[in-house]
């Protein structure tokens, strides 16, 4: 449906034959024991059959989104002199990571109606339907503020370099506190704020090696994992005691 619409838009505008070709610096992110975050380089070109249309303004928007998860946002209020959680809003789906990079300020490269349709900016990427409190907007803002503070939500206006209206590149920093899953990268090509082409690719983010093994074991052989944790604890306790007894002699 979106594709069809995009096609119609493309047919209606003078710049119709523009298409994104993309490359990635890495096709997957491996979370190892010493994982400290990662940088993904997204680069590409705009393929054209016709000369560059000079009237309209070209924009590139790159988004990288982690897996969607439901979250509960709680607000504290003063009750009987102490601060307690009073109100809460269930957010149906919020990406665990979301970065949006553009070639220019958002309002110049994206119209609001297009944002609504493609869910590009952060507030649009968060889906919140069932709100029990009147000012649920404040809760969504708080969610964005807290996640932005942890570098999980990033707005990078002007971070996409565009050369000769053809070549583009941008780097997205993935922080160390990353959740596993399929990360989706979307690249939008806009003309006067209208999306004329969209390119989607996925980047799997996975634990590997020891991390993978432990995680799987904790979930698949929970009892064994628990016993292993306990025996390590007891062995360490005994070991330290033995070493110290030897040292004292």
């Amino acid at each position, binding site marked *: 449906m979106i594709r069809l619409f995009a096609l119609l838009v493309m047919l209606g505008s003078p710049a119709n034959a523009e298409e994104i070709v993309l490359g990635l610096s890495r096709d997957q992110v491996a*979370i*190892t*024991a*010493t*994982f*400290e*975050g990662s940088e993904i380089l997204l680069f590409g070109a705009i393929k054209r059959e016709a000369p560059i249309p000079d009237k309209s303004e070209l924009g590139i928007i790159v988004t990288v989104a982690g897996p969607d*998860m*439901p*979250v*509960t*946002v*709680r*607000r*504290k*209020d*003063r009750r009987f*002199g*102490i*601060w*307690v*959680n009073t109100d*809460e809003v269930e957010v149906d789906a919020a990406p665990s990571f979301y970065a949006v990079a553009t070639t220019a300020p958002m309002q110049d490269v994206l119209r609001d109606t297009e944002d609504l349709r493609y869910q590009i900016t952060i507030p649009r990427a968060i889906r919140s339907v069932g709100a029990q409190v009147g000012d649920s907007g404040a*809760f969504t803002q*708080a*969610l964005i*503020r*807290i*996640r932005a503070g942890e570098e999980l939500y990033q707005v990078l206006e002007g971070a996409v370099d565009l050369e000769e209206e053809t070549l583009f590149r941008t780097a997205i920093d993935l922080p*160390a*506190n*990353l*959740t*596993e899953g399929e990360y989706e990268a979307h690249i939008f090509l806009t003309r006067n704020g209208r999306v004329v082409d969209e390119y989607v690719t996925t980047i799997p983010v996975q*634990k590997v090696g*020891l*991390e993978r093994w*432990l*995680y799987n074991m*904790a*979930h698949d052989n*929970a*009892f064994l*994992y*628990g*016993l*292993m*944790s*306990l025996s*390590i*604890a*007891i062995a*360490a*306790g*005994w*070991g*330290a*005691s033995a070493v*110290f*007894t030897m040292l004292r002699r």
Partner: protein
Amino acid sequence: MQIYLPIAEVSVNAFLLLGLGGIVGILSGMFGVGGGFLMTPLLFFIGIPPAVAVATEANQIVASSFSGVLAHLKRKTVDLKMGTVLLIGGLVGSGLGIVLFNYLKALGQVDLLVKLCYVVFLGMIGTLMFIESLNAIRKSKKSGHVSTRRKHNWVHNLPFKMKFRVSGLYISVIPPLLVGVLVGVLAAIMGVGGGFIMVPAMIYLLGMPTKVVVGTSLFQIIFVTAFTTMLHATTNYTVDIVLAVLLLVGGVIGAQIGTRIGVKMKAEQLRILLAIMVLAVCGKLAFDLLVQPTELYSIGTEGHA
């Protein structure tokens, strides 16, 4: 050096964890407390998800308590009989505590309950211990000898009496069993070993000698926390073994050092230090509840995952 924790899914500094484990381990060895009541809030503070912090801390307490109890066993300062009675109560209590915890979790507000529990119990125990040990120090300075408190209270009039030779007690098994249950319930709710409640209860309620209290408390804590670890590992999958190993390497070494410091100190000094520490943690938690937080909102994913 940053380390990515596979279960907690966060990246933390390995040396920070080793250091935290070491400091808490020293305290644990000195006072016979598992150190969970200090470590769990510290782990929250460095960004470990609360569920993982509580479960992993239980595992770490097993290690430091085991290390500590071995040192005490060598000096014969563990009352195994008393420990077993406390343990039976403790296992019943932690079973009850987990039921209660899950019920409150369904109602929401479990965070608040945990914090209020901390403030109330730490405040009460800390104040009582502080006053008591201050009096004891004053008395011992005046008269030159430590007075032995052997007064008979209601505890001594209950049935099912049993002889606890190491503690030099002949009392009913009911009070130790109840202490065990109470500690077990609180341990499950607060995610701690419960030593900081049990140690004062053993001294003031059961009248056990301070030197025996520490080893016996550690002995009981090992089993209760091992039980809790298994429960968390099999039901919530929240035990992070990498986090546990980092904490316990520091912890077991610290516990050995702490036990040796503890032997060199007078019982009254030991108690007053523990009281000050308990009051400090209590004050910090109470402060957080009373003062307006800078961020009124918080994000929770529990109940979904």
